[in-house]
């Protein structure tokens, strides 16, 4: 069967969870109380995806404030800086690398186990890739970007191996920064390969890449050592679609057909048109349908409406093809 649906990872945090996170930061509650709220929120996000009809679920990354900071807070050798703006009115606490980076304990395994235990559908595990962890951190320690990136590859590899040992069958390694410096794509690929290289063959590996100048690097991006690429396409008006015809045989495309940086909810017909554009380039059995990126910047209502339109459009495209 082709044209399966998934999402990129993050979901909007409900008010109750945002409040609890603030309360923990202000020492008004203890970690177990936050955890209780988080677990309720994860169950709700899973139920929402089941209700909409998503095929491969995520836990919504509700325990992560930011995709790099979350790991920085858990790795030895990394600290967290003050607020830095990333775009518009969005800010994050950028990690600072101050010593040799080491993983002292699994960072995401327990949370993935919880999510998978709460739904009969498969749940994808999501990590931030080594190149992005490096590029989105201030490095005050390593002598070179290569040394930094490969050190981070080791800790991400350890985490990936633990996730697979726990039963993960779809593993997404986010590398939104990978297109930033074309001259470093080989380094990024090598680091990603270090993570995916010794994973069991039955694990399907994905990487998610978004909001970059893909033109100069697209050909080499398609060769990244993963089974599938999850790409933002809608926001950039499908500029890179033509190049995706060169996706190596056997590799999958996760096509971003919903713009997550627009409050306007696309109609199912509009999403269907986008899906059909993708299917002009690749056959349905090699295409997964996703939003462009994580949904955390949308309201819960917007996220629900966008995903509903996405699933409705995907079902229509499947029906036309008797999938």
């Amino acid at each position: 069967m082709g044209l399966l649906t998934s999402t990129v990872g993050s979901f909007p945090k409900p008010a109750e969870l945002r409040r609890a996170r603030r309360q923990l930061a202000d020492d008004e509650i203890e970690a177990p109380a936050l955890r209780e709220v988080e677990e309720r929120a994860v169950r709700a996000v899973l139920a929402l995806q089941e209700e909409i009809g998503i095929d491969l679920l995520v836990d919504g990354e509700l325990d992560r404030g930011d995709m790099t900071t979350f790991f920085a807070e858990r790795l030895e050798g990394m600290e967290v800086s003050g607020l830095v703006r990333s775009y518009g009115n969005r800010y994050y606490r950028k990690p600072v690398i101050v010593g040799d980076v080491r993983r002292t304990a699994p960072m995401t395994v327990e949370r993935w186990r919880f999510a998978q235990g709460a739904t009969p559908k498969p749940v994808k595990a999501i990590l931030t890739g080594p190149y992005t962890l490096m590029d989105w951190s201030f490095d005050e320690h390593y002598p070179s970007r290569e040394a930094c990136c490969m050190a981070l590859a080791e800790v991400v590899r350890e985490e990936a191996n633990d996730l697979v040992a726990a039963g993960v069958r779809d593993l997404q390694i986010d590398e939104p920064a990978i297109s930033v410096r074309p001259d470093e794509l080989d380094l990024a690929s090598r680091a990603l390969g270090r993570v995916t290289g010794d994973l069991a063959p039955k694990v399907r590996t994905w990487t998610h890449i978004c909001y970059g100048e893909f033109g100069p690097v697209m050909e080499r991006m398609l060769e990244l050592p993963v089974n599938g690429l999850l790409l933002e396409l809608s926001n950039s008006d499908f500029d890179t679609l033509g190049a995706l015809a060169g996706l190596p045989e056997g590799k999958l495309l996760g096509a971003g057909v919903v713009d997550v940086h627009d409050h306007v909810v696309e109609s199912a017909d509009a999403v269907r048109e986008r899906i059909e554009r993708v299917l002009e380039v690749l056959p349905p059995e090699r295409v997964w349908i996703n939003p462009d990126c994580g949904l955390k910047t949308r309201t819960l209502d917007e996220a629900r409406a966008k995903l509903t339109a996405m699933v409705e459009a995907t079902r229509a495209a499947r029906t036309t093809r008797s999938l």
Partner: protein
Amino acid sequence: MIRAANHSFYPRVAESPLDQQLRTALRKRDRGRATDADVAAVEDEVACLVVAEQSRAFIEIVTDGMVRWEGLLSRVARHLDGVEPRDLARWFETNFYDRRPEVLGEVRRAAPFLVHDYLVAESVALTPVKMVLPGAVTFARLSRDRHYDDRTALARAVADALADEVKDLATVGARHFQLDEPMLCRHPEDLDLVVETASRVFDAAGDGATTVLSTYFGDLSRSADRLDLLPGSHIGLDMVWSPANYDLLARLPEGKGVMLGLFDARTTRVEDAADVAAGLEPYREGLVSRDVIVGPQASLELLPRDQAFDKLLHARYLVEKLAKEWTWAC
């Protein structure tokens, strides 16, 4: 003469609740709980705070902090007829994203959009306020052009719009202007178009204005033989990105001022003024006869507020050191 200056943006948000008021106001507006007027009032207050903070580092030229700018391109795009800010696109090799302009019709400036910013900043500044604009060629290179289908024509139209803005700013008293043309480092073939469009904009500033053609995230080594053509009172060079720009210091046209981006805006590690001074020592002879401005290589909004301030402070330390230890001809 040597002075310290901020490059362009300054972090609009920091840790305290007072320093988060703009973020909060924008979020409230997003949720329908604040009006444009509410946000504008907060923007003015934050602009005053960041101007005051720059002054606290004792630098000689501040900016308005560009606290109303979503990004270098999108703010201008929002105020030009024929252009809309659209999809998010990464700002060079940084972790910052701006909305890419989409050109849909004839580009014209609808109304002045920076005069208020300047007047607010100037009202609290202890030193001159520099107003920063994107260069027309960088704007054209990074836009999606669905109208002109001709980068030269688009750049010329953008330059005309920017010149209108600079003229209005000059009318209300602005005397320091900066055009950011980082794309020149990557596209030396654009030099003639940069010369033409930047000249047009700088001419609108009037005689005696300080006009900086700022380049960064690259070097101008491939334009080394043509530096004398570049317009403006100062050439801005990114000394952090590449050592190649150091070689250009001996080749700068006579009488040309230089704005040296010596402090890395992409790392929290703060450079020591003495180390930076030692790096400039071999070029002392070519610098002491010029008007030299020192500061960060690019936007300080790539850093948290505390580190941004530290970078300005160390730029000021550098000025104090070199003003004392070198003999300046002007």
